[in-house]
């Protein structure tokens, strides 16, 4: 049994259209799980359901074996970092971070020590007496994270926390988030629409599309074995053809299913499917070729050891294990 489980969760804003449809999701203890998908796919809604900020019309949600479906937000005790940071403008950084402890009626002295400790961990120890207005975006982000962490939540929920930061700061922040998450061993759910960001820090990734989870696996697994065509395209697969076409490149390929491959795995040699090079683009240390064959056009990427010219007639082949079956 997983640490946290969502079972057949349904969410609807207007009681007609379902935003989430029978969503199942398992979250393992101590992992960083990302929800990845295009905007409008329901990833933020899923996070809000977990946080308790959104009502469901069906399904159950349990954490550590305890049914949380109808537990109110303020009793769940999860840490949430919002996209807009949502810092309290009239409170200092110290009081912002200590807010959750104040609500728990913790003794002032003890709370103060805790606040300083978590601020130190998040790298904002020197800004404790400033107001949110006096901080930069990255610093605000760290305050929001510290505020969520100080209550020692069972679950840490991050809603696109990096989307308001510039590119360089983003990479820096995602590394800090990962570091802090590992140090505390805190179970974390991270919502993002950025594939690179997501793959770089997640232990597992749940890819969502139209209110459903289409694949939930480790980044490596998704990268090598995408569950469907959408995901395959998302992680860089090309050359989508039925297995029968791939037969011409590799005699032992499966017949029926829809297959694809990465451009780097297409080999140009003396045997296989005949074709002609239409376009050549230089990628720096390698070339990308568009090759037209009687079965359709293929994309291949080859190193600089054998350079072909536009118009050259070549033969394409591929190893069987490099062909990825994406169903249907």
């Amino acid at each position, binding site marked *: 049994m997983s640490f946290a489980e969502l079972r057949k969760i349904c969410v609807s804003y207007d009681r007609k259209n379902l935003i989430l449809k029978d969503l199942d999701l398992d979250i393992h203890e101590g992992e960083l799980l990302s929800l990845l998908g295009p905007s409008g796919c329901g990833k933020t809604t899923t996070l809000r359901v977990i*946080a*308790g*900020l959104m009502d469901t019309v069906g399904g159950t949600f349990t954490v550590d074996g305890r049914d949380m479906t109808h537990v109110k*937000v*303020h*009793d*769940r*005790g*999860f*840490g*949430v970092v*919002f*996209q*807009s940071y*949502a*810092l*309290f*403008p*009239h409170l200092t950084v110290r009081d912002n971070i200590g*807010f*959750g402890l104040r*609500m*728990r009626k913790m003794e002032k002295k003890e709370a103060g020590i805790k606040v300083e400790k978590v601020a130190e961990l998040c790298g904002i120890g020197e800004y404790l007496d400033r107001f949110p207005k006096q901080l930069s975006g990255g610093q605000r982000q760290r305050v929001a994270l510290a*505020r*969520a962490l100080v*209550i020692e939540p069972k679950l840490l929920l991050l809603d696109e926390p990096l989307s308001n930061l510039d590119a360089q700061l983003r990479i820096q922040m995602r590394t800090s988030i990962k570091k802090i998450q590992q140090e505390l061993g805190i179970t974390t759910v991270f919502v993002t629409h950025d594939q690179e960001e997501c793959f770089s820090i997640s232990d597992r990734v749940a890819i969502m599309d139209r209110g459903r989870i289409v694949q939930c696996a480790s980044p490596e697994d998704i990268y090598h074995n995408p569950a469907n065509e959408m995901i395959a395209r998302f992680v860089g697969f090309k050359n989508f053809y039925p297995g029968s076409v791939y037969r011409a490149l590799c005699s032992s390929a499966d017949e029926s299913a829809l297959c694809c491959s990465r451009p780097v795995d297409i080999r140009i040699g003396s045997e296989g499917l005949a074709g002609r090079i239409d376009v050549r683009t230089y990628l720096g240390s390698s070339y990308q070729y568009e090759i037209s064959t009687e079965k359709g056009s293929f994309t291949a990427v080859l190193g600089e050891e054998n350079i072909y010219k536009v118009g050259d007639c070549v033969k394409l082949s591929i190893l069987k294990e490099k062909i990825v079956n994406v169903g249907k």
Partner: protein
Amino acid sequence: MYRHTLLKIVAIATLSFLFVPLLLIMVTAFNSGDTISIFIDGFSLRWFFKVFKSRSLVNALKFSLKLGLLSAVLGVVIGIFASIALTRRPGKVSNALLNLFLSSSLIPGVVMGYVLFQCIVVTLQIPLAYALMIGHILIVLPYSIRLISAGLKNCDVSIEEAARTLGCRPVMAFLLVVLPDLKGAILSAFMMGFINSFNNIPVSMYLKGPGMNTLPYAMMSYIEYTFDPTVSALSVMIMLFTLFCMIAIDRIAGKRSR
């Protein structure tokens, strides 16, 4: 250059039209003579003291202050609840309602006073003191709803949600996190409401009962029978008070946006 000069003339003319009468009133207030005149006999503050000797004016001032403060407080409290309801569930209905609530500031006071008199005094037989209170709350309400709902719209909804995830019940989250953020809007609404209630004549005219003289009304009846500069002196004091309120609003509301 020509247009520039014309613009200056128009601007000066407009400003004079607005401010010269006020200046004249101020001049008359310091007259040591017995009549309201801009050709003053000498400088004196005696009319300022006379204001506080006139029982009718002092009583009316007390009454207007009480009425203004009470209706501003109630108007702001109602305004806060109304604004929450109207801004947190945006949609056609709430937008229409918002406009409807604001529209009472467009209805002429005389009409509103008459309608209130007919409805709540004649038909519902509500005592005049309460009727006057209701009338003045209605004067305050458009300002309070407009200012507070604008403040709420500027306030990030996720702040309240963040407070709730940190262990706050909904009401506490509002009091601890949203309300402090609305401080400026609430204070502006209170002052605007108070000033408007304090200055109002038409609504009070219909709804005031015996012994319920509001200050502007008392001033009107005072000049009807007496022609000394007491009212000028009182006007100067009211102007200064209003100016003080306006500066206070600006300081408080301006601080937030800076």
